[in-house]
Structures are given as structure tokens and as C-alpha cells.
């Protein structure tokens, strides 16, 4: 690693008090980083410095984050700083950290009930068993939304011997326990189960904490606010009892995964612990002054963030008098052309429509199609489901497009996930043989402009076909691939997709973005159009609990703070109370 790279990069942090404190911190620290505060830049430079100055081989640094997407992002940024030695740093999701660093090496010795060998249940299998457990306990088949509260309970009360668990709804706890039993009997574990097992092992065994402390004296956690209670408890235990140094980064105000058990208070708690240096990144490099002020009006206890340059922006509020589709039409006919006219340097890709659920997305998509506009969609109605195989294909596509040159995805990484898709290959020799055609195919097709359909076809004949035949566990994934392939047919939505666009999850500069608020985290646009901000819909009239209403406000906050220059808020007849808050603050 060239040590100069991060030292030079660090100069950019020097003028920013919070960033510089984070860079100089030598203890546990919790960095509260608001929108556009240079969080990823700060944390990657911090990681590069820690690795260079504090971590000595054979010890390593672990960096845990929320999703594979975040992993790719961090890796790319670290590579740019010259941190590319995988023997020194582990960047992984919580699930994969729990799996490879805790459950696989220690569960058997700790006597924790997990399947041996470890096999992770496909989502469809897990759904099937959950339904079966529900039926067994309740005597009737479950309704449509039964999972959410069960998942939430499972993630927020990890300890099944605790008083809290026993005090919880008896039928719900019974269903969860039955589900976990069924899962284990089928020789499977699910993603939540991995994290829960990891937590249990860390909490109960001093020797495991000692092992982890030796392997990873420093653990960096990005997007801390999204990671939920089990991870928080793991990290506190490792920090307080094993002396692992924790560097946590995140924004409690952007905590919008309450249904997964994430809470904004976890990062705040960490931030206020006496053992932890609390740091605020206050400067917002993204949003114009008006947008920052408006966003603060949404929160009860807003951060004292400020614009770094005092840039002026635009916030407009529109009563359209029509439903979401009408709002979309209005925006596409009136707002979008005006923006492009006012800003000749903007493209469609600089503008995003943000909304709550995929249904609004479909309405907007329809309006866009009517106008012959190309769009990129990222929501639950998204055509490409995120499965293990799709993650693998995305990595492969990123490698073919840019990774082979930039290293944001490495061939080694692709081969590693390939190996995980092929548990049937029992030894290294056969694994090496099996990957040859895959490598050959990837090398021959290192070109982002190849049509996706062709690229998938080539991968299928050279490597995937054989894998599907040999691995019964990939049956679900075979269906996924068939669906994806069907979508690339003439006349289907992904007809014009190239490997490049697929690698970007479909994004390209000349397409307008349609994104759910949840999926918009971490992204930024020149302008944001938010639709469907009706009283009674946002927050939903069914959301009565304080924490639900607060989370809706944070979701709104995330949406507003995606914009650098312009925010347009649309509703039909009666504006959401959140719009009112903004109206009052910016009046």
C-alpha cells in the first residue's frame, strides 16, 4: 500500500473539524454523519490510516456494513486509496461476518445448535417453513402481512431466555420457536438466524471474544443505524469486554429500517457511552441551504448541520389535485422540462422521483412510458430480485465493466462467491476445475457494452448450466435466472440492457430514476421529486405509535436530503403534516 495515498487524501479532511477529529481519533468512536457530510470519504481514509499505522500483520481490520451494495462501494473507495490487500482487511455484510467469522469457526465448539454443514435457507424455503410454523401454532394459514411483526420480534428480542421474550406475545414467540426448530430439522439456517447465532456465541463465550479481538483489534461499522439490535449488542460486548476498538459511523436521522429491528437510538447510545468518543460531522457538502433548513423541520431533534458553501436552492410545493399518476404526469410535463431548461448541464439521470412503495413507482413508470421517457427503477416492484445468484451476477457484471481495471470488484471475490454457490464441490481440485470455464467466459466478455441477454447466455452455457445440474440447492436460483433472461427478450423491459447498465443496477445517465425512499439512501441527485405526500398516506393513517410516526418523518428526511439543488413536493388535495412543517420552516 502506498502510504502517501491516504496522507494526501487526509489533507482534504483537515479543514473540517469533525472529519479531522475522526481522522485523529485513537479510541472507540461513534461518528454521527448527516447527509452529504463526507461520511464514506472520512471512514475510508480513517480505515487506510488505521491499517497503515496501527494494525500489524497477522492481525486484520474488519469493516462491517449493511448490504452487498455498500460492500462494493466501500471496496471501490478503499481501492482508490490503495487499500486492496484482502489479507489485511475484511469488508463484509453483517450476515457474512456472522457466518464466516463466528458461526462457521466456533458454533460447533460452542455447542450452539446450527446445521452442520452450514446451509443457508433460500428465501422461498424460509417462507414455506414460516407458514408451516404459523399453521401449526395458530391452526389456520397465515394472512398476507404476517411476517413483518414476527421478523421484528425476532430481531428486537434476540435472547430467547430473557424476561422480555417471555413477556412477548406467546403465540408469536411460539411460532418463531417452531419456525427455528423446523429450519434446524431441515438442516438450514436463515440470515436472521446467522446473526442471532453469532450474537449468542459472542455473548456467552469469552474465548470467542478473545479470538475475535486477536483477529480484528479494530472493527469499523458503516451504516450503523441500519444494523439492528443484535449487531449493536455484539459490538458493545466486543468493545466493553474484549477490548475491541469500535469505529461506528452512521446517521440516526436516516434510520428507516424499523421493521428489521433497527433503531436510531442504538447509534446514539453508543455515541454517548463514556468509553466512546462522540464525533459529529456537521458540514453538509450536498444540499443547498434551503434544503438543509427544510429537512431540519422534519425532525424533533434536528442535527445542527449546516451548508458548507451557503449555496441557494429551490423548494417548491405543489397541490396537483390528482392521484399519483396525475402527479407524475404533472411533474414530467411541467417540472422536469423546466429543470432541464434552467440547467443545460443536467441530464434525466440527475432527476429522481422518490416515493414510498412500488405501487407509486408503477404509476410513475406508466406515465413515463406514455411519454417515451427512459427510466430506471429501484423499488420492490423492481424486476430484478436480489438473490445470491443475482448478487454474484452483479459482481461479475461490475468486474466485466470496470472491476478488471479498477478492482472495485476483484476476480478473487467473484470466485469466492462462486465457490459458495457450489457446496457440492467437495475439494479444491474439483473446485479449480469447475471454475476454469467461468473465468474464461468472464475474460472473453470484459466489455460493458455487451447486451445483457447475450452475456447471460454465454455465462449460462459456459458455467451456470453445469452448476444448476450439479447443485440441487440452486433450484430457486435457476428460476430467478430464467425470469431475468425472459425479461431481456425483445419487447421486454430489459431488452436494451447492457452489462454496464445491469452492473449499475440498471442506472444510466440518460434515464430518469424512480426509486423508493428506502432504496434512495446513500444516493444523491441534483433534483428530487417526491410524490404522493398526502395527509393520511404519509405518515400512514395506520401509523399511530410515536416511533412509527417518527420513522415516517425520517423517511421524508432521507428523501429531501437526496437533493443537491431542488426539491419538489407533490400532493393531491390535503398536504401531509410533514409538508406543513417544511412550509412553516421555509416561509
Amino acid at each position, binding site marked *: 500500500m502506498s502510504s502517501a495515498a491516504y496522507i494526501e487524501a487526509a489533507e482534504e479532511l483537515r479543514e473540517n473539524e469533525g472529519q479531522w477529529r475522526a481522522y485523529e481519533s485513537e479510541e472507540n468512536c461513534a461518528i454521527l454523519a448527516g447527509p452529504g457530510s463526507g461520511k464514506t470519504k472520512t471512514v475510508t481514509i480513517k480505515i487506510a490510516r488505521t491499517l497503515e499505522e496501527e494494525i*500489524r*500483520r*497477522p*492481525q*486484520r481490520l474488519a469493516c462491517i456494513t449493511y448490504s452487498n451494495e455498500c460492500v462494493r462501494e466501500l471496496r471501490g473507495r478503499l481501492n482508490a486509496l490503495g487499500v486492496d490487500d484482502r*489479507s489485511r482487511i475484511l469488508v463484509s455484510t453483517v450476515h457474512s461476518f456472522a457466518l464466516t467469522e463466528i458461526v*462457521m*469457526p*466456533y458454533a*460447533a*465448539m*460452542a455447542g450452539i445448535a446450527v446445521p452442520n454443514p452450514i446451509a443457508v435457507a433460500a428465501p422461498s424455503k424460509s417462507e414455506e417453513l414460516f407458514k408451516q410454523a404459523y399453521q401449526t401454532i395458530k391452526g389456520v394459514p397465515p394472512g398476507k402481512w404476517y411476517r413483518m411483526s414476527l421478523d421484528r420480534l425476532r430481531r428486537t428480542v434476540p435472547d430467547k431466555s430473557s424476561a422480555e421474550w417471555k413477556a412477548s406475545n406467546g403465540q408469536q414467540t411460539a411460532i418463531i420457536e417452531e419456525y427455528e426448530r423446523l429450519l434446524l430439522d431441515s438442516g438450514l439456517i436463515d440470515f436472521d438466524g446467522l446473526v442471532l447465532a453469532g450474537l449468542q456465541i459472542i455473548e456467552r*463465550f469469552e*474465548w*470467542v471474544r*478473545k*479470538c*475475535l*479481538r*486477536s*483477529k480484528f*483489534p479494530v472493527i469499523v461499522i458503516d451504516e450503523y443505524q441500519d444494523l439492528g439490535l443484535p449487531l449493536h449488542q455484539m459490538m458493545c460486548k466486543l468493545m466493553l469486554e474484549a477490548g475491541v476498538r469500535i469505529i461506528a459511523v452512521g446517521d440516526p436521522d436516516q434510520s428507516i429500517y424499523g421493521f428489521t429491528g433497527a433503531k436510531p437510538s442504538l447509534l446514539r447510545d453508543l455515541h454517548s457511552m463514556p468509553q466512546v468518543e462522540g464525533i459529529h460531522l456537521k458540514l453538509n457538502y450536498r444540499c443547498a441551504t434551503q434544503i438543509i433548513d427544510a429537512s431540519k423541520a422534519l425532525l424533533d431533534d434536528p442535527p445542527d448541520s449546516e451548508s458548507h458553501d451557503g449555496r441557494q436552492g429551490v423548494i417548491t410545493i405543489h397541490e396537483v389535485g390528482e392521484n399519483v399518476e396525475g402527479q407524475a404526469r404533472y411533474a414530467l410535463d411541467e417540472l422536469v422540462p423546466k429543470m432541464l431548461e434552467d440547467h443545460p448541464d443536467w441530464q434525466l439521470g440527475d432527476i429522481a422521483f422518490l416515493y414510498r412503495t412500488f405501487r407509486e413507482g408503477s404509476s410513475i413508470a406508466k406515465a413515463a412510458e406514455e411519454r417515451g421517457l427512459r427510466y430506471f427503477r429501484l423499488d420492490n416492484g423492481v424486476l430484478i430480485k436480489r438473490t445470491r445468484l443475482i448478487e454474484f451476477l452483479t459482481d461479475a457484471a461490475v468486474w466485466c465493466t470496470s472491476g478488471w481495471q479498477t478492482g472495485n470488484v476483484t476476480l478473487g471475490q467473484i470466485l469466492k462467491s462462486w465457490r459458495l454457490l457450489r457446496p457440492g464441490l*467437495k*475439494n*479444491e*481440485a*474439483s473446485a479449480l476445475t469447475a471454475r476454469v470455464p467461468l473465468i474464461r467466459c468472464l475474460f472473453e466478455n470484459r466489455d460493458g457494452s455487451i447486451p445483457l441477454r447475450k452475456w447471460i447466455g454465454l455465462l449460462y452455457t459456459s458455467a451456470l448450466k453445469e452448476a444448476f445440474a450439479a447443485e440441487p440447492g440452486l433450484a430457486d436460483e435457476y428460476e430467478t435466472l430464467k425470469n431475468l433472461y425472459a425479461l431481456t427478450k425483445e419487447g421486454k423491459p430489459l431488452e436494451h440492457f447492457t452489462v454496464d447498465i445491469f452492473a449499475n443496477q440498471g442506472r444510466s445517465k440518460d434515464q430518469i430514476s424512480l426509486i423508493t425512499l428506502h432504496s434512495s439512501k446513500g444516493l444523491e441527485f441534483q433534483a428530487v421529486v417526491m410524490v404522493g405526500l398526502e395527509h393520511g398516506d404519509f405518515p400512514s393513517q395506520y401509523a399511530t405509535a410515536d416511533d412509527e410516526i417518527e420513522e415516517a418523518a425520517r423517511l421524508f428526511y432521507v428523501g429531501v436530503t437526496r437533493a443537491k439543488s431542488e426539491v419538489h413536493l407533490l400532493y393531491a388535495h390535503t398536504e401531509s403534516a410533514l409538508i406543513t412543517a417544511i412550509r412553516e420552516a421555509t416561509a
Partner: protein
Amino acid sequence: MRLSRIKIKNFRNFKNLNVRLGEHAVVLGENKVGKTNLLFALRLILDPSLPDSARQLRLDDFWDGLERPLKLDDVIEISVEFRDFEDNENLLAILADSLVKPDPMVARITYRFQPISGLAAAPRSEADYEFILFGGERVENSIGYELRRWMPMDLFPALRDAEGDLARWARSPFRPLLDRAAADIDASALQEIADEVQETTEKIAELPELSKIVDDVNSQLTDMVGDQHAIETALGFAPTDPGKLLRALQLMIDGGKRGVSEASLGSANVLYLALKQLENQHLVNEGVRQHTFLAIEEPEAHLHPHLQRRIYRNYLNVKGDAKEELPARNIILTTHSPNIASVAPLKNVVVLRHSAGRDHTVGRSFHGIDLQNAEIEDLERYIDVTRGELFFSKGVILVEGDSEKFLLPTLARLHEPDFDFDEYGITVCSISGTNFGPYVQLLGQKGLNCPFVVLTDFDPVDEEVSQEDGDPDDEVQQESYGATRVVNSIMLHLFPEEEWEDATFEEVLGAAPDYGVFVNEFTFEIDLFKNGAHKAFAVAIKDLTSNKKIHERFNALAEDPDALDPKQLLKDINSVGKGRFAQRLAAVLQKDKLNVCPPYIADALSYLKGKLE
């Protein structure tokens, strides 16, 4: 950290070796028993300088006893376990994923040479095999160079050229030490010295007698290869380039009078080891590696026995108080030198020997036996003074004192003309007393598992001369001290544990001969006397004392053995020295070809012979 266990299955002469180790491993065994194979097995796992092509074994490497053709489930498996690493966070970082036991932590690395999986039929050729290396219980947790690099095994082979290596700069263990020091030397100071060296050198070279030589050489060279290719030579002590100056330094011995290349082979070896060790410690201090397993093959080569004992006694005894600051290295040495064997702490000894059928090698260490510290010290002292003979014996006769030791070989040969102890590899071991317990455990199944018999005296309680070693307050006070000894301190270690509680004293005593424990009727000399040696006694005593009364008493007994007064006889023998008397008696018996072997000894001999055949 230390290596705590080695398991080897189906590899060369090892069918199924499983030995536990102490801080170091002193591997003892005769030639061809597989000491080098044991080291090679360790190298497969720990030696970073061994290429993977050497890790791909051959079909010949399968243990010969396996039925050919080899079957699908025949594999070679070598595994090593490590302990005492959990307080070193770097070692723990390396081994954390290979744990097999958490408290105290044990990590395991396994090498396996196996048929390529997915092979439909039985493997046919070497191409059908692959090797894997993995940590812990998980085959997929593969181990590679990274681990070997952090905790390598350095092999110092038997056929080494310590002298040559020391002399050649590129291979010298002195080089890294010098290089390291050189890095800190002030460049200008070095330049100054280099200039001085050059100046002095020039002065010498300018001496007319010498400069003529150089001219001659140069002109000869020019004649041979022409101007273009000529090499210009000059005289000098050392290169005058400051960077190379230090490389010309060499270690001197004998107060600087002689270079190391003139050292004896032995000193060169010692020096080589010392330098290696310093270098290893540096590498650990600098974080280049975390631990070293130093394997030394036949350290006795070229070393005088006294030196062997002296060096290795210190080298291996880094235990006890030094616990807090364990050096970051373990020594694994293989030897057939009794001198080194005799000074090795018992817990570090591994004995390799051929199995009963001689078709494979078994290994023994002393970790399964539960001995008190004082007992271990006794044994170590005994082993020390007897030069480790026990480790090299095929069969052992444990006796109380020197009398038996001197007489037994003779008694045996006169009893049975073919029974030569040396030929059978039998050692008579005198324990100078009656505390057989530790020896029995050392030789027993949990220890060396070496065939042995115990010969001990009956020692009637009502005789004053009897050896009174039992606890007088013992409830079971038998008619004989010997019987109590046999049961309570010998059979205790031999009799099946699960039957011990239910067995009566008499049952255990009665079973003693089945376990190789034999008791006489009185005491060794008296039993000999009564068994027809009375005349020989009189002849033997003649040359040993001028005491007329003793002569008279012995002569009288020679005529009338029934008049024996055991107390008086033993007193007389003691007065000339029991050992001395025994030696003399042996000569007398030998000369007259007199077989006076008492029945308990005859029984013991036939028992032992049965075990050895």
C-alpha cells in the same frame, strides 16, 4: 506456544502414530525407525521452504502394511496440535480459525493425501490423488503459505555443512545479523573506515615484492584473454566499497587467531545453531514471524559426548520459572545419542520404536502418566547417570540393587546358555532401593510400553535384616514387607483399575507374576545361597577379605548349608560390599558353569523372553 500432539496415519513407516509432546520434543529411536520421516511429516505442515510439489506425495509414501491396491478410503493423514498460544494475540489471530478446543485452547492443522473426490472407481495412479491442508475440523478451512510463514519450521538437517554455510556469505546465518546491524551504522563513519582500509591496503600492495605479483598476474591474464576481456586484479584484505566492507568481516575464534572455517566441525555446528537462534529471535521481535519450530536432526553429529550433554542440558531445560517469558521457539530434535537422551527432561522425550510385528513404528511419550515432581526428578536423575539406557532397551529387568545387576546376566546364561541379554536388548536396571512405582509407570502401558519384569525381595516381617519400606501403620500388615510392596506400590500401577476395588490383597498378590512381578522367599543373596550357591559363596569371599572369621563361617556353611544364619551371612557380605561380592560370585559361577538360578528369577526370565519373542 508449543506443539502438543502429532498424529500420523498411513505415512511411510507410521501406521497410526499418536504422541503428545511437552515444551520441546526430543525424538529418540534407533536407525531406520522413522525419525526423518517424522520430521518430514511436520515439514508438510510447517515448512514454508518446502514446495507444494513435495507436498504431493507418492503412492510409495503410503504405509507398506496397507493392502494393495489402495482403496478409496485409504488416506495419509498428518495432524499437529498447538497449545499455549492464547495469550499471544498474534498467534491467536493466526490460529483462531483452527481451534478444536476452547479451554484451554487447542488448535489443529491437518494434512491429508487422499483420492481426488468424486472419483468413481478405486484410485489407480498418483494422478488420482491430491493433498489438502486445513485448520480445525473444517476441511474447507484451507491453510496455506500464510500460516507457515508466521510460524515456520526451520530444519537443520543431519547431512548439513555448517562449516561451508558459515564460510559462504550468501548462506551464512551470520549475514542477516550483520546486515541488520549495518543498517544502523552511520554512512560517513563507514566511509571513513573504508578509506582507512584502502589506504592501509594500498601501502601493503605497494611493497615491491607484492606489486610484482599483481603485475605478473595481470599480464598473464592479458595474454590469455586479450585487452578487451582482461580482469584487472589487485591485492586487498577487503572490498573497499563501504557497502561491501562489512561483508568481509568474519567471525574469528580462539581470541581472533583463527577464522571460523578452521573451527572443528563440532564448534561450527554449535556456532551455526547459536547464530540461527539469534536470527530467529530477531525475526520474531521484528514481527516477520511469530514463532519458530527449530528442528535439528542428529545434533550429536561431530560433538564430543561431554559437549552434547552440556549444550543440550541447558538448551532443553527452559522450563519451570521461565514460564512467563517463553521463548518464541520450540525445539524438535531427533537423535540416537544416549548422551542427549539422558539430559532431556522426561516430559519432552518421545521414543520411537518398532511395533511388535516390526511392520510399523509406534511412538511413546510420558504425558499419559501421572507422576509426582519428585518422582520425575528421580527418574531423570537415574536416566541421566545411566545415559538413557532405558529409552533404548527392548526389555528391562528392574531390580533393587547392584548385586542383582551384576549377577543376573550370568545367572541367566548359566540357566539357559542362549540367553544373552545384549542380544535381546535387555537392560538390568538397578533402582537402588524398593521404590519401583515410578519405574513401573515409566515402562508400563501408559509410558514406554516396554516389556519388563520386577524382581523384588520377600523381606519377611519378622527378620531384622528385611527392607522395611511399607508404612508401619498400614492396616494390612502382612507377614512380608515385599508382599505389601508388590501390591501397594507396584501392582497398583499394573492391575486393571476397574477390578482394583473388588480384588483382595491375596488376589492381587497372586496375580503379580502374570504382570511380570516376581518375589523371592527371603532376599536375593539368601535365595541364591539356598539354591545351591553355598559352595560358590565360600570361594567368592576368599579373595575379598582377609577376615579369618568370615572365611571360617563361609567354609562351615559350604559344608553345612542348613546351619545358615541369614542375619550373619548378610552382615558378612555387607562388610565386603554387596556389589563387590556379587561381581566376584558371578566370576566364580561362570568358571564352574554352575546354574544356581532361583525359581523366581527363572520364572521372570521365561516371562520376559516370552514377551520379547
